[in-house]
C-alpha cells in the first residue's frame, strides 16, 4: 500500500523541492520571494512553448528557466535597485505571470517530457527527480560549508556585514534572487514535463506551499526539501484517498503546519535577521 504512494509522492515533491530551494537562496540573501508561484507558472509555460516549438524537452527546460530568470530579474531590479516593497512586488509578479499565460494563449498539444531513468523496485522517473536530492546536498554544502555561502547568508543576516568586507550586498542579493528564478523555473518545467500538457491553474498554489516549506524547514535546504517531501506525501494521500480523509483537510495541512511553526508552538522559526530589510 505504502509502496504505491512512492511514485506519486516523488512526483508531488519534486516541483515543490526545486521551488523551495529557490526560495531558500532568495530569502537567505534577505529578499522575500512571494513570486515563486509566478516563476513556477512561467517556467511551466516556457517549457511548454520551448518543447512545443522545438520538439525537444531540453530546449523546453532552457526556455522555462529563462522565463523564470526574467521574472527573477524584474523582482531583483524592483526590490534591490529601487528598494520596492518586496511583498507587493512579489504579488505583482504573480499577477503578471498569470496575465502572460492568458495573453499568449498556450497550445493545448501534448509536449515531450524529459528523459526518464529507471530505479529498481519503484519505477522510472524523470531525471529532475534525481537531480533534486543532488542539488539539495550541493546547496547545503555551498550555503553552510563554504566562504561563498557565508557571504550569501551574510547578505540576509545584516545590512552592514558585507560592506565591512567591502563587498556589495546588492550583488549577492541579485545572485540569490536569480538563483530562485532558475530553481522555481525548473520546478514549473517539471510539472509540464510530467503530464505533457499545460493548464492555466496547474501551479495551484504550489509556489506558496514551497514558501511554507522554506519556513517550515527553517531556511535550510535539507530540512526544506524534507518539508516538501512531507507535503508531497500529504498531497499524494489526497490523490489516492487512502484513508477517506476529506482532501480539503489534507490540502490545508501544510498551511496550518506553517502557521503553528511560525507561532513557535513546534520548534522555532528563525528567519534571516535582515529578511525584507532594505539597506539604509
Amino acid at each position, binding site marked *: 500500500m505504502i509502496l504505491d504512494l512512492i511514485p506519486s509522492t516523488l512526483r508531488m515533491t519534486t516541483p515543490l523541492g526545486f521551488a523551495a530551494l529557490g526560495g531558500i537562496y532568495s530569502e537567505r540573501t534577505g529578499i522575500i520571494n512571494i513570486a515563486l508561484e509566478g516563476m513556477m507558472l512561467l517556467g511551466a509555460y516556457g517549457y511548454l512553448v520551448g518543447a512545443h516549438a522545438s520538439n525537444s524537452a531540453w530546449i523546453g527546460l532552457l526556455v522555462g528557466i529563462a522565463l523564470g530568470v526574467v521574472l527573477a530579474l524584474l523582482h531583483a531590479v*524592483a526590490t534591490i535597485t529601487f528598494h520596492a516593497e518586496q511583498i507587493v512586488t512579489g504579488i*505583482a509578479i*504573480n499577477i503578471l505571470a498569470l496575465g502572460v499565460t492568458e495573453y499568449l*494563449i498556450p497550445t493545448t498539444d501534448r509536449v515531450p517530457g524529459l528523459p526518464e531513468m529507471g530505479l529498481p523496485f519503484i519505477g522510472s522517473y524523470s531525471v529532475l527527480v534525481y537531480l533534486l536530492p543532488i542539488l539539495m546536498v550541493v546547496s547545503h554544502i555551498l550555503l553552510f560549508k563554504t566562504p561563498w555561502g557565508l557571504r550569501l547568508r551574510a547578505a540576509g543576516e545584516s545590512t552592514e556585514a558585507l560592506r565591512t568586507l567591502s563587498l556589495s550586498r546588492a550583488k549577492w542579493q541579485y545572485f540569490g534572487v536569480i538563483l530562485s528564478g532558475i530553481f522555481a523555473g525548473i520546478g514549473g518545467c517539471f510539472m509540464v514535463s510530467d503530464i505533457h500538457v499545460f493548464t492555466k491553474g496547474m501551479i495551484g498554489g504550489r509556489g506558496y506551499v514551497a514558501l511554507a516549506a522554506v519556513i517550515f524547514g527553517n531556511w535550510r535546504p535539507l530540512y526544506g526539501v524534507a518539508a516538501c517531501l512531507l507535503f508531497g506525501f500529504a498531497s499524494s494521500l489526497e490523490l489516492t484517498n487512502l484513508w477517506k480523509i476529506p482532501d480539503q*483537510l489534507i490540502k490545508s495541512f501544510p498551511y496550518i503546519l506553517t502557521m503553528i511553526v*511560525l507561532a513557535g508552538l513546534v520548534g522555532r522559526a528563525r*528567519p534571516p535577521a535582515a529578511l525584507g530589510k532594505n539597506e539604509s
Partner: protein
Amino acid sequence: MNIRQSFTTLFNNLLFQILQLIRNLLPPLLAICGFFLLCGIVLILRRQNLWEFYTTIFISGFSSFDEVGSVLFNSTPLIFTGLAVAIGYKCGLFNIGCEGQLYVAAFAATWVGIYLNLPSVMLVPLCIGAAMIAGSIWGAVPGFLKAKFGAHEVINTIMMNFVAFALTNFLVISVYREPDQMIPQTAQIHEAARLPRLSNMFPVLSQSNLLDASFLIACACVVICYIFLKYTRWGYELRLVGNAPEVAEYGGINPRVVTVWVMALSGAIAGLAGVADVMGYRHRFLDGFSSGWGFTGIAVALLGRNHPFGVLAAALLFGLLNKVALDIELILEVPRGLFLVGQGLLIVGLVCMEGISKRNN
C-alpha cells in the same frame, strides 16, 4: 501689514498643500499613464488600430448609464478589499488575506440567508453581520499570532487564504451543495436576504443592469473609513501605531491590542466584498466566485495611496478595466491577459517609485 502677512502665510500654506497633493498624486498618475502607454505599444506591435482601442475603452465604460452602472458593479468588491488593505497598511500591517476573508464571509452570509427565515429588516443586517464576524475572525487570527508570537502577518494571511479556500470548498461540495446539481454551489438565499438592484430605484438603469445596493454600502464605507481614520480616537491610535509604535507605547497605547483589532476590522471590511457577491449578485455561494479581488485590492490600496477616497478612485479605475477587458477581448480580439500584465507592471512601477522616494527622504 498684518493683513498682508497673514495673507502670505495663507498663500504659502495653500501652495504647500497643493504641492503636497501633487506629490501624492503624481506616482499613481504616472503609473496609470504608463499602463495605457504600454497597452498602446502592445497594440502597435499587434498592428491594431490605437484609436479604436482607446475609443472602445471609452464607449465600453462611459457611453450610457448602463455601461457606467456595470463599471460601478465591477468596482464594488474592489472598494471593499481596497479599503481593507488600506486600513491595515495605515497601521503598518499587510493584509494579503482579503481573498480568504471574503470567502468565509460570503459563506457565513449565505448560511444565514438560507437557514434563517426572517423579514428583510432583520435578515439583511444579520447576514451582513455574520459575514463581517466571519471575515474579522479570519483577519484576527494572523493579527493575534503577530501580537502574541511575533509571527509575520503576511505569511499567516497567505496561509489562512488557503485554509479558507479548502474550508469553503469542503462545505460547499460535501455539506451544503445544492441538491441534484453538478456545479459546486449552495442553494439560493431567501428573497428577504437579498440586496435590491439599483435599477429599481433609478429608472435610468435598464432592468438587466446588475448594479445593486452593495455599491451604496461601499460608498458609505469609504466615508465612514475616512471619518474613522481622521476624526476618531481609534483611528488616531491606528495611525500612531503604524507611524511610530514606540511613541504609541509611550502614549499608553498597546500596539499588540491595536494589531489584533485592526486586522479584525480589515477582515470584516474585506468580508463585505463577499457580501456584495452573495447578497447583491449571485444570491448563493459559488465555489471560487472571486476573481482575485483580494489581491487586486492590494493594487487598489497602493494606487489609492491608502487614502479612503483614493481607494474609491482606484477601485473605479480597476472596475473600469475589468469591465472593458471583456469588450476589448470581444471586439478587438485582444486577450484579457494584456490588462493583467499591465496591472502587474503598474504595481511594480508604483512600488519602485515609492521605494525611490522613501530613499530620497
